[in-house]
C-alpha cells in the first residue's frame, strides 16, 4: 500500500464532510435570513410550556377508525382549535390511532370541550336568506312591522318559524364577528337557527333539522354524468342517504321543489356553519342526490369529505392531558442540557484516561457528530416542524455514549493490529477494514431498534427514538468521514506514528515490538508451557512430524511467545 493512498482517501473524505456541513449550514443560514427558520431548534411543549392532549377518536357504535377517518378528525379538530383563537396549535396523528393536540398556554374549559365534542352535521331547510353583514340600522324592519306569527309552523320551511325576536336578531347578525367567536354551541335541532355560509357570503334563517348527518350513507366527488351518460365536465358531489335518510330526504325535496327563492334551498350545516346550501331541482326519491355548482376538483372533494365525516360523528376521549408551565419547561431544558454536559465531560475524561491524546479524536468526532445532529434537528424543525422534547434530549445524551462506542471499537481494533506488530499506518488500514464491518452491523442493530421504537412509541417518547436513530446515522457519517480519515492523517505524523508515550498508541505499552511478524496474523496462544531447553530436542522431533501449516503456526506461536525454541536450538 502506498503512503499516498490513505492520505488521498482521508483528504477526500474530510472534504466531503466539509461539503455536507457547509451545505447544511448554508441552507440553515438562508432559512434564517429569510425568516423561515431560527438558529435555535424548535422546542416541544415539555420544554417550552403549554398543553398537550392526546385524544383517541371514538366512533359511534365502537367501530374501528381508519386512517382516512383519522385524517378527517384531525382536520376537524384543527378547524375548531384555530377557530377558538389559540394560535400555533399543532395537531398530529400518532400510531394511526390517536390525535395529539399541542398548544401553548392553558386552554380554557370551553376550548377543551370544543375539541372533544363530536362533529354535528345536519340538513336544515332554508327559510330566509340575507346579506353577510348586518343590515344598516336605517334599513332594519321597524318594530311594528316585525313578524308576529300566530299560527304554528306546518313544516320546516314555514315562515311562521320566524318571530319578531328571530327576525331582529337575523337583521343585526354579523357573520364576520360571529364566526370569529366560533361559538358553536350546538343549536337545538327542533328550533330554527341563524347560520352563515362563508363560501357564498350569505346568512340564512334555517328551519329545524330535517335530516341528521348520521343518515348520510356515503359522499363522493366526481364528474357529472348527463342522462345520456356523457361526461359534462362539471365537478359534482354525489350524496347518498341510508334508508331512513332516503325517506326524509324525499319528504324534504318534495316540499322544497315547489317553493320559490331561498325556500327552495336546504342547508348542510356542520358545527353551526353552512357548508353548502344547494337548491332543489327535483324530487329525489332514491336517496341519491347530486350537488352541482361551481366546484373545482378540490372543492368538490373537500365537500364530499366533510359530508362523509358528518356521516360518521367522531367524538374524542382525552387519553392524557398534560399541562406544563413555562418555568418547569425552562427548568427541564436546563437540567437536560446540564445532564448532557456532565455526560460529555465524563466521556471526554474517560477517553483521555484510556486513549491519551487519541481521546482528542473522540472528542472532536463527538463535536462533529453534535454539529451534524444540531443541523439535522434545526432543519427538520423547519421542514417537518420537528420539535425537540425532553425525551429527545435524553436520546441525544444517551447517544453520546453509543457514538463514542464506535470509536472505541475502532481504536481497540487498531491496538490489536499494533499488537500484531504492524506499523501504525498499516494498523489503521487493516483495523479499519475489520472495525468497519463490526460498526456497521452494530449500528444497524441500533437503527433497527430506533425505527421500531419510533413506530410503536406513543406520547412524547417518540422524540427519544427519533434522536436515537438520527444520532446513529450521524455517528456512521462521522466514523466514515471524520474519525477514520483523521486517524489516517495522524498515522503519518511522528507523534502518533512513532507511538509517543502520550499518543495512546505506544507500542511498548501494547507489547507490540518484539513480536514475530513473518507468519502474520495468527494470535499467540500457548495451551502448553513453552518448550524449555530440556525438551528442545523432543519438540524438534515433534516439529518434524508437523505439517507445513502446523509448523508455521508453531513458529508463530513460539516466536510471539518470546521464547523461541529454534533460537534455543541454535544455542544448543
Amino acid at each position: 500500500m502506498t503512503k499516498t493512498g490513505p492520505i488521498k482517501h482521508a483528504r477526500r473524505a474530510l472534504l466531503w464532510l466539509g461539503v455536507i456541513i457547509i451545505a447544511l449550514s448554508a441552507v440553515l443560514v438562508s432559512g434564517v435570513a429569510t425568516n423561515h427558520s431560527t438558529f435555535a431548534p424548535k422546542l416541544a411543549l415539555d420544554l417550552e410550556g403549554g398543553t398537550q392532549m392526546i385524544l383517541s377518536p371514538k366512533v359511534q357504535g365502537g367501530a374501528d377508525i381508519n386512517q382516512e377517518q383519522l385524517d378527517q378528525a384531525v382536520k376537524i379538530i384543527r378547524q375548531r382549535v384555530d377557530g377558538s383563537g389559540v394560535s400555533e396549535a399543532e395537531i398530529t396523528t400518532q400510531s394511526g390511532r390517536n390525535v395529539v393536540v399541542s398548544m401553548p398556554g392553558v386552554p380554557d374549559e370551553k376550548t377543551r370541550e370544543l375539541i372533544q365534542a363530536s362533529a354535528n352535521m345536519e340538513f336544515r331547510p332554508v327559510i330566509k336568506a340575507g346579506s353577510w353583514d348586518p343590515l344598516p340600522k336605517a334599513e332594519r324592519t321597524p318594530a311594528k312591522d316585525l313578524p308576529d306569527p300566530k299560527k304554528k309552523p306546518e313544516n320546516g320551511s314555514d315562515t311562521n318559524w320566524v318571530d319578531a325576536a328571530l327576525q331582529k336578531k337575523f337583521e343585526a347578525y354579523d357573520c364576520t364577528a360571529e364566526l370569529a367567536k366560533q361559538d358553536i354551541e350546538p343549536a337545538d335541532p327542533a328550533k330554527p337557527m341563524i347560520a352563515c355560509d362563508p363560501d357564498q357570503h350569505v346568512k340564512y334563517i334555517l328551519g329545524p333539522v330535517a335530516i341528521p348527518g348520521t343518515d348520510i350513507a356515503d359522499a363522493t366527488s366526481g364528474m357529472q354524468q348527463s342522462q345520456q351518460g356523457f361526461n359534462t365536465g362539471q365537478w359534482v358531489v354525489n350524496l347518498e342517504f341510508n334508508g331512513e335518510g332516503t325517506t326524509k330526504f324525499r319528504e324534504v325535496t318534495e316540499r322544497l321543489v315547489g317553493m320559490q327563492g331561498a325556500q327552495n334551498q336546504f342547508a348542510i350545516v356542520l358545527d353551526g356553519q353552512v357548508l353548502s346550501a344547494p337548491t332543489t331541482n327535483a324530487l329525489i326519491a332514491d336517496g341519491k342526490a347530486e350537488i352541482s355548482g361551481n366546484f373545482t376538483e378540490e372543492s368538490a372533494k373537500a365537500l364530499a369529505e366533510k359530508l362523509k365525516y358528518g356521516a360518521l360523528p367522531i367524538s374524542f376521549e382525552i387519553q392524557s392531558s398534560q399541562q406544563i408551565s413555562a418555568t418547569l419547561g425552562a427548568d427541564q431544558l436546563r437540567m437536560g442540557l446540564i445532564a448532557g454536559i456532565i455526560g460529555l465531560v465524563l466521556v471526554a475524561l474517560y477517553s483521555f484516561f484510556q486513549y491519551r491524546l487519541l481521546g482528542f479524536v473522540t472528542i472532536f468526532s463527538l463535536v462533529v457528530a453534535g454539529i451534524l445532529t444540531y443541523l439535522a434537528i434545526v432543519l427538520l424543525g423547519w421542514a417537518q416542524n420537528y420539535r425537540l422534547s425532553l425525551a429527545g434530549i435524553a436520546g441525544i445524551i444517551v447517544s453520546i455514549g453509543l457514538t463514542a462506542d464506535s470509536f472505541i471499537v475502532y481504536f481497540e481494533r487498531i491496538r490489536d493490529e499494533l499488537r500484531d506488530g504492524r506499523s501504525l499506518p498499516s494498523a489503521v488500514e487493516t483495523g479499519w477494514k475489520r472495525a468497519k464491518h463490526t460498526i456497521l452491523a452494530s449500528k444497524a442493530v441500533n437503527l433497527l431498534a430506533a425505527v421500531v421504537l419510533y413506530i410503536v412509541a406513543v406520547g412524547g417518547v417518540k422524540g427519544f427514538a427519533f434522536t436515537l436513530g438520527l444520532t446513529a446515522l450521524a455517528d456512521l457519517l462521522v466514523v466514515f468521514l471524520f474519525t477514520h480519515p483523521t486517524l489516517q492523517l495522524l498515522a503519518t505524523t511522528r507523534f502518533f506514528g512513532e507511538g509517543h508515550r502520550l499518543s495512546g498508541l505506544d507500542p511498548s505499552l501494547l507489547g507490540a515490538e518484539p513480536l514475530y511478524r513473518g507468519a502474520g496474523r495468527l494470535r499467540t496462544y500457548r495451551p502448553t508451557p513453552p518448550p524449555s531447553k530440556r525438551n528442545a530436542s523432543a519438540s524438534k522431533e515433534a516439529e518434524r512430524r508437523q505439517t507445513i501449516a502446523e509448523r508455521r503456526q508453531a513458529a508463530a506461536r513460539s516466536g510471539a511467545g518470546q521464547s523461541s525454541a529454534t533460537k534455543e536450538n541454535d544455542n544448543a
Partner: protein
Amino acid sequence: MPNLATWGNDLYTGRRSYPFIAKRNLWFAIAALLVIASIIVPLVKGGFNLGIEFRGGSEFTVSQVQHTEVKVGEQAVKDAAPDHEPTVTNIAPNTMRIQTERLTNEQTLQVADALAKAYGVSDSEVTSSFVGPSWGADVSQQAFWGLIAFVVLVALLMAIYFRTWKMSLAAIIGLFTVVIVTAGIYSLSDFEVTPSAIIGFLTILSYSLYDTVVVFDKIRENTAHTFEQTDRTFIEQINLAVNQTLVRSINTSVVAVLPVGSILFIGAYLLGAGTLKDLSLALFVGIIVGTLCTIFVQAPLYAVLRHGEPAVRKHNAKVLAKRGESQVSQAATAG
C-alpha cells in the same frame, strides 16, 4: 491507563485468560438464579409500582415550593375537591407531586388554583396532567408488539450477518435474560413503571445487542479458520475472542453508562419524577446487565450450541489428541 493496556495485551495474546466458556455452567446457574429472582421479586412485592399512566387519574406538580409540607397539599385538595383522597409526595427539592383520582376539568383548575395558593407559588408553577385509565395499557401493548417486531427483525439481521442462526438464538436468549433481570432490579428499586420506563426497556434491547454484535463479530473472526489448525479447540477460540474483546466491552459500557448515569442523577435528584429518571434507570441497569450477559451468557451459550456439532467434535478430538501426544513425548524425554 497503562495497566489496562498491558492487561489488554495479556488478554489479547492469551497470556492471561479468564475461563468464560469453561465455567459456563456456573454462569448459567447464576443467570438462571437471577432470572428466577427477578420473576419472584415483583410477585412477592405484589407487582410493579405502576405509574399514574397505568392507573389513570390526575396529577399535579408544584415547583419552586419553599415549604415542602405534605399536609398543606392534602388540605388544599380536600378543600377544592372534597371527595378525593390525594397522595402528596415531595419528589425533589422544592417540588411536590400530588396525585388524585380522575378529576373533572373544572375540578382540575380549582385544585391547581388551590395548590398554588396553599404553597404560595404563582399559578404558572403548577403543572397538571390527566391520564385516562387505558393510556398505559395502550402504551404497553404497543411496546409488546414493538418487542416482538424488533426481536424477529434483529434475529434475521444477525442470522444473515453472521451466517448462522445459532448466534442469533444465543443473542436473543441472552436478550431476554437482560430484560427480565433489569425488570427485576427495576421492581426492587421501587421506581414507578411509566411509559418512559417501558421505552427505556426497549432501548436496552438495542444496546445489549450492540454489545453482543461486537463480541460475536470477534468470535466469528477467530473461529473462521479454526478447523484449519490444531492448536486450539473451537471452544478455546471462542473464549479467546471473549477475552480479547474484554477491554473493548469494558470501555464501551463505561462510556455508554456515563452519560446515562448523568441523566439518572439529574433526573432522580434534581428534577424528580419524570421522563429522564424513568428512562435512565432502566437504561443504566440494562447497559451493565447487558454487557455482563454478553460475556457470561450469550457467548457461552453460543459455544454450547456449537459444541455438539460433528465437525466441532471431530476437531476437538483432533486437537486434544495432538495435545496429549506432545505431552506424552515431552514426558518421555523428561523421564
